[in-house]
């Protein structure tokens, strides 16, 4: 379903570069739920943005259903997002001018080019918000807003749901509700679920935990399962790239500046740029 091969991401800040992802490789099977666990600034959101086609890697390949996102144009990436992926954000990201129902219909329109009011209402019912269809975001609690965001995600019938700290702004009771809803959707519809979190309890509810630190995957398997099913030993795909690999990265980099940045800024345990290692 999702395969990342040697993905680097660097941002230019003035005359220096900030390397956020360092040679990340990862595989996620269809229908799997994976938590990407890491501290703030570890690169987990960047990783998710790249998988969702919201951002591009500086180097490496990102395959989703066999399609390498690196080679897609902006509009092709938009069509990829509309047809394959739903994104759930920590900050809900609802359109404040629209009601809950209209937000869901907006997602329908993006996915199918048309809206279906009855279907949108059914989706809201799924997340327990049928009574709040005509409420605008500011009239809803945080948990309710996140459930609207989940309804928006479901409205697109996605193969992949990517959630960035979906419970980060919620209290423990609401967190359980939202998590339960996401996992229920995953089980019922066979959707692949990728959740970024810094909360170990949330991560443990997923089938697999991928730990990320300073832009590198330090653990790609294990973790405890919260919802049945066999645990699967997964290979540690991430590794520190040696100088030879970096030289290869430079040779193949599609974005020269970031590759050069990697060559000059690699320091163990730090994302900051500076002297070469």
């Amino acid at each position, binding site marked *: 379903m999702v395969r990342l091969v040697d993905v680097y991401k660097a941002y230019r800040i003035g005359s220096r570069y900030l390397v956020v992802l360092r040679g990340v490789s990862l595989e996620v099977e269809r229908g799997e739920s994976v938590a990407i666990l890491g501290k703030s600034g570890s690169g987990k959101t960047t990783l998710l*943005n790249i998988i*969702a086609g*919201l*951002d591009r890697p500086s180097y490496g390949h990102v395959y989703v259903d066999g399609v390498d996102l690196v080679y897609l144009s*902006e*509009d092709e990436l*938009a*069509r*990829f*997002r*509309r*047809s394959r*992926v739903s*994104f759930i*954000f920590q900050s809900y*990201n*609802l*359109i*404040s*001018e*629209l009601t809950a129902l*209209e937000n869901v*219909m*907006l*997602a329908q*329109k*993006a*996915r199918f080019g048309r*809206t279906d009011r009855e279907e949108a209402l059914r989706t809201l019912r799924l997340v327990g918000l049928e009574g709040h269809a005509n409420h605008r975001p500011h009239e809803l609690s945080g948990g309710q807003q996140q459930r609207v965001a989940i309804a*928006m995600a479901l409205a*697109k019938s996605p193969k992949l749901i990517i959630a960035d700290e979906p419970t980060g702004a919620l209290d423990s009771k609401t967190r359980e509700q939202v998590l339960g809803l996401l996992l229920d959707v995953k089980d019922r519809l066979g959707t692949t679920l990728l959740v970024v979190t810094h909360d170990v309890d949330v991560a443990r509810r997923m089938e697999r935990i991928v730990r990320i630190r300073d832009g590198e995957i330090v653990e790609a398997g294990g973790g405890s399962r919260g919802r049945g099913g066999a645990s699967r030993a997964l290979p540690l795909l991430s590794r520190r790239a040696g100088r030879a690999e970096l030289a290869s990265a430079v040779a193949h980099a599609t974005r020269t500046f970031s590759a050069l940045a990697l060559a000059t800024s690699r320091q163990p345990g730090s994302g900051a740029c500076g002297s070469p290692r």
Partner: protein
Amino acid sequence: MTLYRIVLADLNPRNLRTVLTALGIVIGVASLVSLLAIGYGMRAAVRENLEGLVNMGFILMPSGGTSSGGLGLGSVSPMGVIPEGEIEGIDEIYGVSLVTPVLTQVGFTRQTGDSALLVIGTPLSGLEKGLPGLIEGSYWTGDREAVLGATAAKMLSAKPGDRIEILKRPYDKEGLSVRVVGILSSTGTFLQDQAIYLPLETVQEFYGQEGVVNLVFVRVDDPEAAEAVREVLVKRYPDLMIVETDQVMQNVGSILGILDAVLLGIGSISMLIAGLSITNSVMMSVNEKVREIGILKALGYTRGEILRIFIVEGLAYSAVGGPIGVAAGVLAAKFVSSALSVRGYALPLEFGPQSVVAGLAISLAVSLIASIPPARRAASMRVVEALSHE
């Protein structure tokens, strides 16, 4: 529609920016429509008026009246005069079928207040042969009798037998009291329909211009005789301007063309300012909705779809401001016309469909062009940066 509500929800009368931007369009369109109306009206009225009066032939006018005569406003503005004695015998030139010496002045009545009417002093023959027939009453038989153009009769609510008083200036205490004896059928020409026709001598006496006229219309029915008539007239009247009908039309056309260009230029500047105002408003809207743009992009909306959202916002300004601007333009033109008539200038107006269509079409085109730059900016935003915007 849900998609467009993201931007259209903010466009309400309580939002000052919306009101000011729409007002910019209203003013731009109003300027354009009013100026076009005045331009079209002047062109149409002058042309039709001259064609109606002149038929085929020549107009003799004093040399000093060139500029005003060229504009076709000679009939309503002060200019030089021609002594009647100088034009005797024109009707004897071979090929000439009708000679009509005319003294035109501006007059007012108590009924019409500030609105100017054209007072035309003409021999009875000019009235009978030069204009369509009567729909009511008869031609004059005495020197204190008047025949009214169709529009003038309506403005004065007058019918044969009524008395009207013609004033030199609005609200003069004393004027010329005449009895209406007939009403002309409409010529379709503004100046002719909104005129009071009186015996030539009566107008000369009332305006203190005895023995003179300011225009002489010479009709030639046979086109082959026209050149010979022109040669005789030029030889006989070296001090007078002799212009052929076609020449008049050409002169009028070229002068009105310049006038049109000036008016259009002024209107265009108004629209340019209105366009910049739309660009500014849509740009502000884009800046305010960076996060929403990010959400839409994350949902999978393409650049083209996001471009359209903000173009629709720009078009919405003209959809609201355009029709109001057209209405305001009509009112503004009428106000200008009314203000000028107080000073003695009858300014005809014409609000043809072309003025309305042009006003609306230009406002839509300006809105479209003006909203493209900010819409492109919205469409080209990077989704991650847009989503992280606070």
